[in-house]
């Protein structure tokens, strides 16, 4: 098993997810089967193949530095769960 239950708990913590015991077990198993499936790639000969940075064979899609109108204040805050005086309002997250 490439992924241990500790890995799942750790990653869930980073993602701010609270998992119950059943979920921890389920995700440990599911993440492992995903990795096992992807491990098939390791059987391929990739000698001399440049690592893929992007799946689409395009580069330099750029725009000019021209100001476009921003959206209205009203629209900006329409989806906000909470707002006050033009600010988004979020639960306080203390880093200290």
């Amino acid at each position, binding site marked *: 098993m490439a992924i241990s239950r500790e890995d799942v708990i750790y990653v869930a913590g*980073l993602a701010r997810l609270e998992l119950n015991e059943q979920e921890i077990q389920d995700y440990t198993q599911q993440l492992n089967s995903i990795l096992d499936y992807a491990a098939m790639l390791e059987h391929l000969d990739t000698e001399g193949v440049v690592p893929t940075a992007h799946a689409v064979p395009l580069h330099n899609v750029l725009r*000019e*530095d021209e100001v476009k109108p921003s*959206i209205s204040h009203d629209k*900006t805050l329409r989806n906000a769960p909470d707002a006050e005086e*033009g*600010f988004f*309002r*979020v639960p306080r997250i203390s880093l200290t």
Partner: protein
Amino acid sequence: MVVADRYEMVCGLEVHVELQTKTKIFCGCTTEFGGEQNTHVCPVCLGMPGTLPVLNREVVNYAIRAGLALNCEIADFSKFDRKNYYYPDLTKNYQTSQFDLPICKNGGLEIEVDGVKKWIGITRAHMEEDAGKLVHSGETITTSDASSVDYNRAGVPLLEIVSEPDLRSIPEVLAYLEQLVQILEYTGVSDCRMEQGSIRFDVNVSLRPIGSEAFGTRTETKNLNSFSSVRRCMEYEVARQARALDDGEEVIQETRTWDEGRGITLALRSKEEAHDYRYFPEPDLVPIVIDRQWVEEIRKTLPELPRERRNRLQELGLSAYDAAVVTQTKAMADYFDQGLAQGAEAKSLANWVMGDLTRLLNSNQCQIVDSPVSAQQLVELIKLIDKGTLSGKIAKSVLEEMYASGKDAEQIVKEKGLAQISDEGALQGIIDGVIAANPQSVEDYHAGKERAIGFLVGQIMKATKGQANPGLVNQLLKKKLSD
């Protein structure tokens, strides 16, 4: 606390500089500072589902420009990555940044501290987006239960410049930052306005016993926004770590924050967890391929950089100090060069620019680009002194008049009759009068009191309202007295 007797400081810096573009890095919202909260935003920089970022060409241009000025290699192939962390200053729960393939790497710049030159390596410089700004309401940061967020700054383009851990003292750190900011200002990559947060510094510091090769455990203090904060923060952090080491405690590897009011650093979070950013390639942006032609086109537009300018001015006879002062900002250096082009002698031009002109500009809170006295006008004034038309002392008041009125020196001299009296005939009469009126001083002089001549010169200057050519007065007076 003196620690230099037992510990050596090792420091590396991360500098975030806001690029001088009109629009954000991935959308057309303005980057203008200020503005009512959440008015410089759109679905892209608000991270709305289904939107796609498109890279601003000018961001790449500025990044290449900064990279060249900082002696970096410009990557042929570069890409963006997602840096994942959960904090509401981001709209998407990740910051679009660059991880393993930054646009610039392996550069550096030269610093000089107490006459010793040293090369400070720059590991890399990469493009990324700025985050939004959190405003904490309530009595203090810890008693409020909510935060207010303004995303006007989210998506403003930044270049993060990461140095090697080559810095060994606080003066070295400050010299590096001064050089760096000066280069960024010269190249026009950033307006470098620290009071608006255009440049922010993260400081990595560790101590190791003198003679030890291995690095000690470091702390990273984030988001300092002035040179003085950097200096104070480092003084505090060095003393704090030294005390811990003296007491046999371990320094914990962690991110800290600087409390400007209290003048201390505080632990924010342990490095271990906070730095697990789970970077992965940004699928919404395609890679950037930069050919040599693109790089060379930008190289051609680079101005002469501060170090080259200082060297050139020193070759013209300026001291290292004077050369550093007149090249402090590009605007002043350009003004100085305009003066040189008008045929001024470097040293006397430097004296006027650094002295009286700077004093007038400062007392009027005026930038040199807006100086009412042009470089050409200043040089004309200096030439009047060189020709003997004006004394240095009167020239100072002429400059003030020029500054106030915008008139040329010659015009002011003519209007006010300020020209120096260098006509021997005219001076002779005045000298005769002063000698006749002060027989005691003449007698003293003949009795060997050299000082008496100073009194006589003073009387002559007074009689001519300071306009007599002092050199000529001295010469004529001595001749007269020895007759």
